[in-house]
């Protein structure tokens, strides 16, 4: 019984994270400002990271956590670079 609960909740988590990604994607398209799009991409990456973690739990393998770790540690680099670009017109000055 508990297995079934776990299975279904994981599926639900996956599904909801995917929905969140779709929402973030919509925001990326609609904007309206560039800042909105950058934030949308950041949340897209975070949701993607969550999806990978849940997938790791589903498959019972820790092998996929590295990818999640990379997003967690380095995913913000693009966001920072984009933010810097928007703020200063140059990513590295």
């Amino acid at each position, binding site marked *: 019984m508990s297995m*079934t609960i776990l*299975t279904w909740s994981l*599926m639900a988590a*996956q*599904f909801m*994270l*995917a*929905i969140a*990604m*779709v929402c973030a*994607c919509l925001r*990326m*398209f609609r*904007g309206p400002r*560039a800042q909105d*799009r*950058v934030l*949308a*991409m950041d949340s*897209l*990456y975070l949701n*993607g990271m969550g*999806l*990978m973690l849940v*997938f790791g739990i*589903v*498959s019972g393998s820790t*092998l*996929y956590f*590295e*990818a999640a*770790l*990379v*997003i967690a*540690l*380095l*995913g913000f*680099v*693009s966001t*920072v*670079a*984009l933010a*810097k*670009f*928007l*703020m*200063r*017109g*140059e*990513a*590295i*000055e």
Partner: protein
Amino acid sequence: MPDAKLPLTLMLFLPFASSAATALMPAGARNLVAWLAGLTALAVFGLGLWAAPEIYAGTVLRAQYAWLPEYGLNFSIRLDGFAWAFAMIVSGIGALVVLYARYYMSPDDSAPRFFAFLLGFMGAMLGVVISGNLIQLVFFWELTSLFSFLLIAYWHHKDAARDGARMALTVTAAGGLSLFAGMLIIGHIVGSYELDVVLSSGRTIVDHAMYPAALALVAFGALTKSAQFPFHFWLPRAMTAPTPVSAYLHSATMVKAGVFLLARMWPVMAASDYWFWVFTPVGAATLLIGAFLAMFQQDLKGLLAYSTISHLGLIVLLLGLGSPLAAVAAIFHMINHATFKASLFMAAGIIDHEAGTRDIRQLGGLYRAMPITATLAMAAAAAMAGVPLLNGFLSKEMFFAETIESHVDSAFDHTLPYLATLAGMFSVAYSLRLIDQVFFGPEATDLPRKPHDPAIWMLAPAALLALMCLLVGVLPTWTISGFLSAAVFGVLGALTPEYSLAVWHGLTPALLMSVVALGGGTLTYLGLKDYLSGAVEGPPLLRRLSGKRLFERAIAMLSWRWARVLEELLGTNRLQSQLRALVVIMVLAGCWPLLAGAGFSPAAALASVGVWLGNTWLSPRWLTSSAPMVGMFDPALLLVWAVGVACAVGAAWQAKYHRLVALILMGGSGLATSITFVWYSAPDLALTQLLVEIVTVVLILLGLRWMPRRDELIPDDQLTSARLRRLRDLFIAIAAGCGVAALAFAVLTSEQTATIGDEMIRRAHPEGGGHNVVNVILVDFRGFDTLGEITVLGAVAITVFALLRRFRPARDSFAAPDQKRFQTEYDSTRYAPGKDPINAHYMLVQGVIIRLLFPVICAMAAFLFMRGHDLPGGGFIGGLTFAIAFILQYIAGGARWVEDRLVVLPVRWIGAGILLAAATGLGALLFGRPFLTTAFRYVELPLFGKTPMASALSFDLGVFALVFGATVLMLIAIAHQSIRVYRTMEKASVREKAAARSRGDV
């Protein structure tokens, strides 16, 4: 026979080794490099002396190494009498030239460069003469052309030197190409490229149907190299080289390569009328024209160059005659010419060096100022003219005697003695002129320098050669006969005829011809003396016949006009059209087998797609099964894909006017791809994809700064033609995309029994010592590919760096971005000036976080790298992560801030990476294993525990270093543009202000 392998190999490679060593020496070490070069030449000469007893006994020394045995090609060295004689000339004159050059070259010239080229040439020339394999011979032949090019253009700041070098290279390298084809034909006829086999093939080549083709190709190669008419024009232009080079390459050795080759192939190719009719007329024409033009040269070296052409023509003529005695005369003359002409060139160099000019009209009466030089030059010039008791007389008399003999019965053959005598007359005339107008007559008063005899060591080489001319001329049987007979026996073997080297043969017709030539030559000179002393440049009759002008016209036609036409027809500067052509060709190539091949029906293809869809997408398995299975579709992945596809299409859609949006959307599709990789159990790819995605975003952002501004109002954009073009491009893109998708689909769904992937997975751990198959493939199984790839990556990075050094931004992206300007203005009202704005205000919080993260990211890079052999990670991923750590610091603190605190030397990282990877590969050779063989075992390391230590790890470390270096180098090079541009702007504004101020003052 003693073991000749080591000495022969040394003989060939010693000059190359010294050349490499010399090239690395500091520019000031003139004496050191000269000693090294001289000792190398002497060592080769000594090796030759060591071999002399064997050679004199008629033995052929051989050494062979397997090169490409599966193609029947060996690296073989073959030293017979002829090759030996040439090797002695090359090394002996080489040593003298080195000594001479030490005193000739000025301290301003780079001595290591000169001697490195000279030694390289010596090695190449030795390679030509002692190669035992035809292909190998051609290789060294081309190498001599190359070194000749480099040496002629030694003073590369002079236009004439560069032009002369290019012309020489074009002509001789074209000949080399033709020779290569000829050698391939000969190899095909004989069935082997080994010189031994070829030389023992008897009449096989001559009787073969392809003989004329082989002859024509070989002849073109030999005649261009030996500067025969009508390809002679490059040699006088090559006189822009330093005089030691002219003495060595362009009189004694390299130009002899052509006649060397003809003599080499003489036994197996000369027994045919074709041979006679190709070489005798060319040789006769060259002999006459060269001698005629030599008389009218005003440049000392030009005179010698045309005389060289003429003497080479004489040798070609002799070889063309096809009789063994004529061949003996030819070989004898090759040796004699090398001695007296090298000596004369050295004397000409001395005159140029001491008097400051080589123009015969300016020179005169030098005998009083430089008596020793004058005496030496007179001896050598007399040998050149064929005066008795000098070596030139002996071979010239043999030549006269041979022309009298009848070879191929024809009118041309009967006129040969008269032509020969005429050429002899010219030769006497120009030799006389050289001596009379330079050393005698009224003393020159307007010379740039005050002439005097040079240092004893500069005279010594010329003196030694002149002495040899004399000794050989007086006592031929005691001095030269052993040397000559060894050389002759090497060519002719059993065919060697009886010949006599006596000075006095009695009253023969040949002697009469010599007398006529000497007398007639003197008269000719006396008659022409006044004409020559005038200001006339060039000969009276043949002034318009300029091979040089024809050559230049042909080159202009080929490399300029036709190339332009082709470029206009086929080329474009527009990236769009290039890409379009590429994609269209790809689509057509993909369609070709489907349309051309039988058995393809669209209906069947559609049916198979339908079946697949029924089995996967439409089956309710993913709903009904209790646990979602890995590798199956599930709704979450479907949604992720929808996001990815939408992002990709959106990015393409927005790429034109909204670059930033397109970039952000691309990030989304990259994430979707990476999640897909995770879903289908490819964590390695997912990691790589994510990191590449991050670096790409930063890279494109850096580039976006310099793109022109967004302009939606391009007037032509709404025209029908533009719309049609876009529609067409859309269609092409869809076709290509669908095609690639269909191909991938076909591959993925086809039944595969045993794939290479399974094989790799099976062998990864037992043979490569790693559980991470991808990494084992990259650093071990396909390590060589990886080595090539990282080398390319390094080259690309350095190219990007080099190109960006000359980067000039477009005018409208020159100024600082608007945001920055507004903010700077605003800040100036709020904050005290002088503080670094980036770290003080904008990036304060992020900067702290990012700096704290630096060690964490570095640790992660190390972690990803170390575990790479068994688990996802590796050098590439680690290197990218490490690079991101640095780039983050640049983003947070600005380039100046980072570079004040951190020393990053990306170029050194690149170099170290390549060297480390290559050294690891070479390490395997030390243990007698093939290149890049991996060794592995587990080692107990403190802190890390049990760690797999494969030698592949060190290779991977090379990859790591290179990827890091390349990434940082490229990104930072772009980032530096903004600093540089502001700096130039500041300079410009300072300059403008200064200009304004000065105007105001006025």
